[in-house]
């Protein structure tokens, strides 16, 4: 369990100087609560990758600040950032980026070892997480022997092994088919909720909008419109509040995926 709060305030990133200056990210602010899943979408060239790099302490903003648990990451010296990335962030990549020579177990354990855990303890912890993610039978497989979904689950295990406050996922479904992609995203959402970890996903994939608590649209380096998601109380599906059918009951607003769900809700609203 974690009580991290991730706070991005007025962050701007400029590349180049003078006539060649380009502003990739402009005055972006964002706050992510523990257990919250935030999806950042946007067209190519909108600044998503630059923002993700800054969120992941891989790139310093030109102005603005990024805080995690009260620590201003953007003000830290470069030599302190690897430790922050190792212990406070979990990264999930588009093409999995598993180490091809290491087994599934070793791919996860090596990250725990880098954080200072002894080899045996690291392997035990990695095995427990992998087993929890349904990969108990694949511990000694090389990545090349795994399906795309399995590879991404290994990547999720690797992201979790050092108990990070925040998980950053870069196009995590890009190399997965629709069904598997959705399964993996549901898994990530379950982890976020159960372990109260914040998750920020950068993706083009419209199909994963329903697993996010919030969807942010980044365009020209700025958030244009914020889509707030809500859970249909009948079927449990995530729906966009602005587009969903809604109804008021007992002073609260409820959102539904379809008229059928609303009608069913209204038959017994006190449930």
């Amino acid at each position, binding site marked *: 369990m974690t009580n991290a709060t991730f706070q991005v305030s007025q962050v701007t990133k400029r590349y180049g100087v003078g006539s060649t200056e380009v502003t990739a990210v402009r005055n972006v602010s964002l706050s992510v609560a523990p257990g919250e899943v935030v999806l950042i979408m946007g067209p190519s060239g909108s600044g998503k*990758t630059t923002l*993700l*790099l800054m969120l*992941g302490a*891989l*790139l310093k903003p030109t102005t603005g600040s990024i805080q995690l648990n009260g620590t201003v990451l953007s003000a830290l010296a470069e030599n302190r950032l*690897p*430790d*922050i*990335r*190792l*212990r406070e*962030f979990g*990264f999930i*990549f*588009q*093409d999995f*980026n598993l*180490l*091809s*020579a*290491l087994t599934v177990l*070793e791919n996860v354990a*090596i*990250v725990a070892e*880098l*954080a200072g855990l002894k080899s045996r303890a690291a392997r035990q912890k990695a095995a427990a997480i992998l087993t929890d993610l349904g990969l108990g039978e694949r511990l000694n497989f090389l990545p090349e022997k795994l399906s795309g979904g399995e590879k991404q689950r290994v990547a999720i295990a*690797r992201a979790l092994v050092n108990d990070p406050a925040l998980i950053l996922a*870069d196009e995590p479904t890009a190399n997965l088919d629709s069904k598997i992609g959705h399964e993996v995203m549901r898994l990530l959402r379950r982890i976020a909720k159960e372990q109260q970890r914040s998750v920020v996903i950068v993706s083009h994939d419209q199909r994963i909008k329903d697993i996010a608590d919030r969807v942010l649209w980044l365009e020209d380096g700025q958030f244009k419109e914020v889509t707030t998601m809500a859970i249909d109380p009948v079927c449990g599906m995530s729906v966009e509040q602005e587009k969903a059918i809604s109804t008021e009951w007992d002073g609260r607003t409820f959102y539904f995926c379809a008229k059928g769900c609303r009608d069913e809700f209204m038959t017994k609203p006190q449930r």
Partner: protein
Amino acid sequence: MWRLAFRNLFQNKVRLIISVGGVALALLLSLSLDAILEGIQRQVTTYIDQSGADIFVAQAGVRNMHMASSWLPASMVGKVRGVPGVESVTPILYVTNVIEASDNAPYMALNLAYIIGLPPNATAGGPPRIAEGVSIPAKGEAIIDRAVAAKSGVVLGDKIKILGEELTLAGLSESMTTFTGSIAFISKKDFDRIRGETGAVSFILVKVELGESPAEVARRIENQVDKVTAEPRTGFAAQERKVVQDMSTDIVTIMNLIGFVIGLAVMALTVYTATLARRKEYGVLKALGARSAHLYRAVLAQALISVGVGFALSLLITLILSASVPYLGVSLSLQINGASLIRVGGLSIVIAGLSAMLPIKQIAGLDPALVFRGK
């Protein structure tokens, strides 16, 4: 990081074979050359080591036999015998010459040899082991090494030529061959006659009385007999080895340099290409939070494992060579010594360290953000 290095290395078998094989061959060059020279040094003192003498007395300033000439007046023999602590003396004559021997075309086969002129009552300086025939040559007789006789196709009773004189092969000795030649024994009388009755001897081989120290008796000889150098056998043999060592230093240095450069080139290339092939993976580790030092260790470990395996392989090949060479009929002996292992081992570590430098520089400049840009 050792596990990562190990797995990276063993995942690509072809690259592994090239890198380990290349390094092994390069190190083999150094190791086997050292073993050959060590073998030569031990062979070259075979006669001295097995002469049975405790002290070698030579003309003043002469401290070895190889490429040296020593002439002492015959009167010196008695003077040395009179020194307290001396049990017996054996004057010998010595020169480098050839043995001419052949089974069907007489005197066509030439074998370089140290010729020893031995008195009939010699208590030292004769062949230590006799395979066949006499152990002290009489007038008109010669003893040569069994391997030389076999190579030339001569047997006991055949005629051979030494110092241009036809002699009867009367004895065959064991283990009296070296890389450069062999040792042949003739009678001192024949040697004297052939060389013109000079009345001189080359060396006086001394046996000391029981309980006497060779070093102490040698000191007494030098004090009591003018214009001689007396060396205990071990010191005399050490001087002999030093001469060979001095003669071969340049060759060894050049060969080691060649081995070093080849090993370094092979390792640098394979470690560099291996790192290049995994550039993205190192970037991933950096992005995940691995410090550059972690990755340097992985690259260095990879180089060290390659070189370590290469070194072990080269040592194994050298051991196989040293065991098999005696069966190939060549007068060569490969002897591996500790100093050589330490030196070539040190060379291996230097190769590993240097070959890892370029890839480390590459990793140092690797931007982990590239991983997110799909590079």
